[in-house]
């Protein structure tokens, strides 16, 4: 037992630096997912039928294929084939971001659809163009309603980021495995990694709950989406 504690203690700084890598991957992917997810959602709700089709296929593709396969496809396949020089770290962010954009688009879409129709009508009645109505009236409300979905998305991305170890990204899992195979303290180190993930999940969801409180509009329930 002391041996395992010593091993964890020795490895801790190294693992914690890994959690920084993990967090950058997660935040990068969430940001990319947000930037792509919002227009995808707007397109899917208000867009031309052909556009909706295309978006639906995009969502279907990224939600239907395992992360690991997409990582391999992008890193070993597409990057080489298209002669793009991207690090494993960058590919990890891009792939997780693309997948997240598919999921986030569905969160936003649900939020937009849950808004009463009168909101759009009232905006039009004030003489707003459709684009203006969407960006000024609809999106600010929809994004507020999406915060609980985000917090869910964060914890999913956090856990999924451990898969990027398969590309050699030096995140928590990769580091835990690296130390484990050299010290033969597998169980303690994987547990340590698990605990770090638990803490990161907890801190992140707490933070997002605070955000949720902060952006809440009185009389607006953000639960039950």
């Amino acid at each position, binding site marked *: 037992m002391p041996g395992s504690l010593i091993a964890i203690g020795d490895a801790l700084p190294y693992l914690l630096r890994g959690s920084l890598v993990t967090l950058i991957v997660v935040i990068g992917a969430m940001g990319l997912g947000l930037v792509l997810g919002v227009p995808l959602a707007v397109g899917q709700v208000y867009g031309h039928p052909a556009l909706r089709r295309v978006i639906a296929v995009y969502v*279907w*593709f990224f*939600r*239907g*294929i*395992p*992360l*690991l*396969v*997409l990582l*391999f*496809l992008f890193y*070993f*396949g*597409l990057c*080489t*084939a298209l002669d793009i020089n991207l690090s494993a770290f960058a590919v990890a962010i891009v792939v997780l971001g693309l997948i997240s954009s598919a999921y986030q688009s*569905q969160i936003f*879409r*649900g939020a937009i*659809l849950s808004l009463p129709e009168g909101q759009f009508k009232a905006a039009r009645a004030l003489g707003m163009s459709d684009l203006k109505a969407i960006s000024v009236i609809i999106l600010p409300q929809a994004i507020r309603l999406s915060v609980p979905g985000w917090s869910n998305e964060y*914890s999913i991305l*956090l*856990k*999924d*980021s*451990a*898969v990027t*170890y*398969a590309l050699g990204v030096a995140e928590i*899992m990769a580091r*835990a*495995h690296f130390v*484990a195979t050299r010290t*033969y*303290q*597998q*169980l*303690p180190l*994987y*547990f340590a*990694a*698990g605990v770090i*993930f*638990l803490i990161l*999940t*907890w801190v992140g969801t707490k933070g997002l709950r605070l955000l949720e409180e902060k952006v809440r509009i009185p009389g607006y329930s953000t639960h039950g989406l």
Partner: protein
Amino acid sequence: MEEWLYIQTEVYPALLKGFWVSLELILPSAICGLVIGILVGVLRVYGSRPVMAAANAYVALFRGIPLVVQLFIWYFGLPYIGIYLSPFTAAVLGFALCSGAYHSEYIRGALLSIKRGQMLAAQSLGFHKVQMIFSIILPQAIRLALPGCGNEIIYLIKYSSLAYMITCIELTGQGKILASNSFKYTEVFLMIGACYLVMTSVAALILGRLEDRLRLPGFEHHRI
């Protein structure tokens, strides 16, 4: 021509083999996961206080720790205390325990959303607790939980690819071997991706059908 031959003699048999292994991983994991989920979900609502606390702790742990870490614990970690599992066993164990935790969330939510009046009415007819849970509560709760649990099964199909990381050579693993040998990464992984798309789409279709068959007035879901 050469391409075609390569696909016929190398790709096709390897992928088929991998596909079967994937199915062998997914089916028992899905079934055990559901059973665990229903059981744990019921315990989390109707269990005694310590049982409830234990079930909640299980769920918090298995939902909070990444599946990869869990798989590593089962496969690479357990030998540390003298337990050796085959990659296949470790994968099924990991999948079932993890998805059971997620299923239990949906079951629990559904159980809690059933109105108290349903229970009062059953009691007033003279039902005892177990009868009431099985003939009144669960039939309603399962209908309510079905969309969530269905999604969970689709996740499981995708996450079954992680078995490759603990050296269980299923569809993704076969793909990786093929691609490393031929350097045709893009083609091979697109094909693998297509296989998973077929699996997830077929599963979604079947689950949708099941939902339609079990659909009752008053239990409609608005799918997002």
